[in-house]
């Protein structure tokens, strides 16, 4: 099996989807000749032509609004928003149009498209190239939200997202775009949406993480193990609808919960995860659930490593939770 990084795995998925289905088109800024600022769409324009790999005008609102219309026609648009930080001009089209089309038309018009966008910090991007805005999309009825952590999942989840009948926000953790490597089958395969994965089994405390922070959680878990604390680390993979069964099984087993995410804490996805767990596992809990997250500040440039919930902050939280 070939070794790949996430950029290559996502590129493979796009290429395969475009080969199989002529209705698949890729729209975005700089996705054509240059192949995307992160090179995720490299080579697609050469293979599929400028009609299907479209360098659009610089307007996120225009890209997503047009993509919704294309989807109504019956195309399968895959939109790239260059950085998640720039998605807000399209937020109206996503929230009020894309997410509601099926519902408001009584099922007559499923507006299906995939919006891919790089998220997260740790690349010296300041607050306009670092945000991790999943909560603002999870909160919107009608959207699915996916965030892979590795090349294998990235390809399988993207192919599943393209096949899925509902609109999907596909968040790509840019910090590990190239750092995360692994074996990726050449053939198509699906990683089902709504399936979390226990990536490190353990019995003392459950750690929920996703995207780039998964590696920080794993690092903290390895260090905790040296101190006799066995953390069970779960990669959520699909953030919404989340795989609640896997989470509940784990927390009922460990009795303790730590949630990790880069986004600010208040009203972050961690708040929802903790609520879901408390509602379902209250009598199994042996300690208050803990959130290790970004702070409620704009994402900082110089101090980004202090802002992010890296291993050095996860480890003490995990040990405290396991011991309290």
């Amino acid at each position, binding site marked *: 099996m070939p070794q790949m990084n996430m950029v290559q795995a996502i590129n493979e998925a796009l290429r395969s989807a475009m080969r199989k289905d002529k209705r698949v088109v890729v729209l975005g800024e700089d996705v054509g000749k240059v192949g995307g600022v992160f090179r995720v769409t490299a080579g697609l324009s050469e293979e599929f032509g400028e009609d299907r790999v479209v360098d659009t005008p610089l307007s996120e609102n225009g890209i997503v609004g047009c993509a919704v219309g294309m989807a109504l026609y019956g195309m399968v648009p895959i939109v790239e928003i260059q950085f998640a930080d720039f998605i807000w001009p399209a937020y109206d*089209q996503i929230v009020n149009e894309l997410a509601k089309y099926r519902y408001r038309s009584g099922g007559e018009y499923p507006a299906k498209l995939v919006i891919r966008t790089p998220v997260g910090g740790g690349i010296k991007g300041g607050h306009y190239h670092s945000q991790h805005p999943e909560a603002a999309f999870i909160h919107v009825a009608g959207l699915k939200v996916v965030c892979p952590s590795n090349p294998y999942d990235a390809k399988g989840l993207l192919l599943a997202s393209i096949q899925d009948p509902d609109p999907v926000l596909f968040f790509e953790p840019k910090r590990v775009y190239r750092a995360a490597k692994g074996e990726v089958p050449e053939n198509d395969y699906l990683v089902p949406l709504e399936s979390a994965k226990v990536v490190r089994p353990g019995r003392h405390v459950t750690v929920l993480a996703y995207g780039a922070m998964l590696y920080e959680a794993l690092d903290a878990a390895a260090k905790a193990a040296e101190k006799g604390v066995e953390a069970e680390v779960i990669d959520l993979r699909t953030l919404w609808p989340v795989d609640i069964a896997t989470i509940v099984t784990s927390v009922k087993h460990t009795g303790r919960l730590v949630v990790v995410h880069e986004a600010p804490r208040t009203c972050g996805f961690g708040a929802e995860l903790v609520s879901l767990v408390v509602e379902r596992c209250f009598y199994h809990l042996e300690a208050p659930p803990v959130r290790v997250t970004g702070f409620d500040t704009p994402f900082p440039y110089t101090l980004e490593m202090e802002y992010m919930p890296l291993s050095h902050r996860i480890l003490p939280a995990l040990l405290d939770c396991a011991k309290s």
Partner: protein
Amino acid sequence: MDMMPDIPATFRPEQPSKVIRVLSDDATLDPRHDPRLNESEVLELYRWMVTTRQLDERLVALQRQGRIGFHVGSLGEEAAIIGAAFAMRKKDWLFPCYREFGAALMRGLPLQVFIDNMFGNANDTVLGRQMPNHSTHRASGYASVSSPVGTQITQAVGFSWGAKIDGKDVASLVYFGDGATSSTDFHSGMNFAGVFKVPVVFLCRNNGWAISVPVERQTATRTFAEKAAAYGIPGVRVDGNDIFAVVSVVREAVRRGEQGLGATLIEAITYRMGGHSTSDDPNRYRATDELKPWAERDPLERLRQYLERRAQWDDRKEQALIADIDQRFRAAVAVAEKTPPPSLETMFEDVYEKPPWHLQEQCAEVLRGPRAPSSHS
């Protein structure tokens, strides 16, 4: 783009063009833009305009009686709405604003389905999920109405752009108001349509008002049509109360699209003769004598005069038409009023193709919980 010493001609802002008009005051047609409709076509257009107005009046009355929650009508704008839809081909699509139910009916939306939507009952194809007038009808190529102003504009562009990539000739007609020209989607939609040469007919119903805000507060340009120049597409102004002129310019726009020449912006000059909607009292911001000149240019009256001069219409026919509309309206309302509200389960359907676990849980919670005091079931 290269730096050029001289601005290329195509980028020079157009002079505000004159208003295209076909139907003159003496009820003759200007041959330069006459769409050459035959008698039955003109009668069909007239009937749909009358139907639209009659329904508008009756729906306002229903709202005043508290039998429906809301109505947003097309009083005075019937020619722009009906004429534009008429000029499109069957395979083309309509992206409505919210005043275009007349166009939907003409394209095939059954009256009963429309009235069910006004009541939001169990037979409403959108299952009472939206306010009245937010209907949808895929079978007649009528996209779903949403309230946010302008959002349909980019979607119309994407629709026909998708068709173009697919190698099909499918145009879209997108309706929007003067207020919507200030929206982001207007700019984005016009811009994308210009760049990708998409066959879209942008129909701006300049009805003078965006709720209480007059057109001078939407733009400092002299016309809306001239905005087209900024996107490299033609802009035309048309007498929106002259159905012949509207049909003519929209047909021309469709033809341009067919020939691969892309989009056209049409500013249809008309007037909103009623309030913004049943929720609005226009007396707070405009004097009634402002309506007078527009009442004299009423699109139905003008077409009726034309027909009467040619002995194609008379009072008796008018009465018969109105009686027929009235009878069909009453029958539809009677059925709609007897139809129960949508079931509770429908609140949770169509959010996703299949309800995920959390919606299944929430649906079960509602079903076993207490009913709201106003609930009909």
